[in-house]
């Protein structure tokens, strides 16, 4: 306590209660995790978890902004423009006005970040529902209209990142101008300030509950990784089950994967079935009844049906006047697989382009979830 002798009027008092600190660092983790997993589809489920947790945290923070202790309240750090201007001016003059909680400029950065947090997570749920067919909004709208929300999601994330940059800049400037270690303060909750009674309690129980709840949610969400067996690798996303046909699975599933009808348009299936006696050099030798049944199933759930993301995107990618006989010849398939390393294709575990199951855990089900893909 040597510092106390140098600065007799100051003391280390509690400014940030525990729930606010837990919120802050969990939000930081979610933000970083979501950014790191935003590019690679294989980690989509981690990305989605970070989003859900972030939304939960934001809702908590909203409530805490009204019900929480003094410095956690919006009323404490949301200032009018005059105050912000005065503060920034004092900062430029090198004599910044002191604030125990957030300063007026920082306050607005926080409001901006909370707002962007809501924009990004909510639009994310919409995109997840439309493009991937998951989450609470699945099946509400077709993938066709997802574009706007995807834009919103990505722009919001960019703005969020910019605000985080400003916030970090503020922390650095604050550290220099006020000679405060703001990072440490957000960890311990204490700041060296004038010895006043702020009335802030730690609310340790609520803080611990928040942390516990987040951990439980994570354990529940990722439990599959510990429970999965050798034979059946864990599939983070179980796709919405596609319609199946026993006839299709037995007649088309013995030589290779029974490719689901969603993977090619109806005209392709019809041509394939017409040419059944020369099926890539094989004679399928199907009797008329079986053939009729297969044709009906294929036409009903062909790519045009758009019942899932691959169906919609494969169909959209094929020019109207073309009838590809291979899934691996469709522009969408080619585009999605063009970046795969040549070494992967040489791996003996991959029998060829059409050996979908070598890389897609859910190839049998036909759902081709982004995150159920594992390169061997």
């Amino acid at each position: 306590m040597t510092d106390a002798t140098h600065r007799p009027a100051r003391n280390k008092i509690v400014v940030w209660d525990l729930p606010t600190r837990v919120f802050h660092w969990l939000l930081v983790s979610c933000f970083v995790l979501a950014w790191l997993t935003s590019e690679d589809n294989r980690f989509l489920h981690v990305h989605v978890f970070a989003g859900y947790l972030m939304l939960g945290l934001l809702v908590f923070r909203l409530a805490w902004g009204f019900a929480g202790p003094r410095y956690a309240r919006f009323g404490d750090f949301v200032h009018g423009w005059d105050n912000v201007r005065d503060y920034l001016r004092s900062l430029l003059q090198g004599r910044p006005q002191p604030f125990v909680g957030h300063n007026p400029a920082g306050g607005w950065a926080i409001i901006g970040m909370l707002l962007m947090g809501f924009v990004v997570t909510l639009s994310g749920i919409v995109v997840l529902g439309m493009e991937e067919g998951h989450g609470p909004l699945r099946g509400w709208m077709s993938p066709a209209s997802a574009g706007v929300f995807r834009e919103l999601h990505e722009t919001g994330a960019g703005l969020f990142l910019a605000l985080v940059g400003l916030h970090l800049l503020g922390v650095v400037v604050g550290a220099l101008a006020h000679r405060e270690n703001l990072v440490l303060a957000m960890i311990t909750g204490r700041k060296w300030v004038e010895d006043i009674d702020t009335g802030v309690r730690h609310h340790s129980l609520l803080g611990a509950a928040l942390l516990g709840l987040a951990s439980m949610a994570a354990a529940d969400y990722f439990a599959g990784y510990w429970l999965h067996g050798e034979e059946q690798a864990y599939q983070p996303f179980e796709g919405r089950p596609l319609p199946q046909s026993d006839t299709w699975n037995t007649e088309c599933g013995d030589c290779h994967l029974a490719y689901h009808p969603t993977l090619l348009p109806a005209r392709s299936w019809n041509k394939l079935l017409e040419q059944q006696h020369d099926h890539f050099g094989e004679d399928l030798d199907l009797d008329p009844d079986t053939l009729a049944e297969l044709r009906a199933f294929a036409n009903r759930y062909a790519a045009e049906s758009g019942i899932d993301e691959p169906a919609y995107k494969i169909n959209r990618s094929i020019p109207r006047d073309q009838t590809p006989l291979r899934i691996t010849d469709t522009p969408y398939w080619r585009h999605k697989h063009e970046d795969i390393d040549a070494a992967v294709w040489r791996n003996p575990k991959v029998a060829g382009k059409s050996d979908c199951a070598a890389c897609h855990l859910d190839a049998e089900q036909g759902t081709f979830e982004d995150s159920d893909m594992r390169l061997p």
Partner: protein
Amino acid sequence: MTDILRMLALCLLLGPMLAQAAALDDLLQQYAAEAQRPFSAEAGKRMWTQTHPSPKGGPDRSCSLCHGEDLSRVGKHARTGKKIDPLAPSVNPERLTDAKHMRKWLKRNCKWVLGRECTAQEKGDFLSYIRSQ
């Protein structure tokens, strides 16, 4: 009472097994009507690894190309790489239990390997060999 239950359980267990064996026996009987000699697992075994030139210039073809020489092991489709469950009924009890399936694949595979459909004699020999594994 317990005896009756035990008998019942036995019937439930054996019933399907017998029915399955019956499917194979029926099929063999049909083939036997057209065959010249009694079926021989030995002959089936010999034909199993016999190679035939491929009409398309690929590797020589044989039954073992996809199913392997050890029928108790998992096979691999020569063109698509898909794994094929073991054919040997001793490790895969579901094998040789469905006449339609057996007919279909004997026709298809014989055409693929030999370039023609197998005779009843050959089919019987193949099935006798697979059954003994």
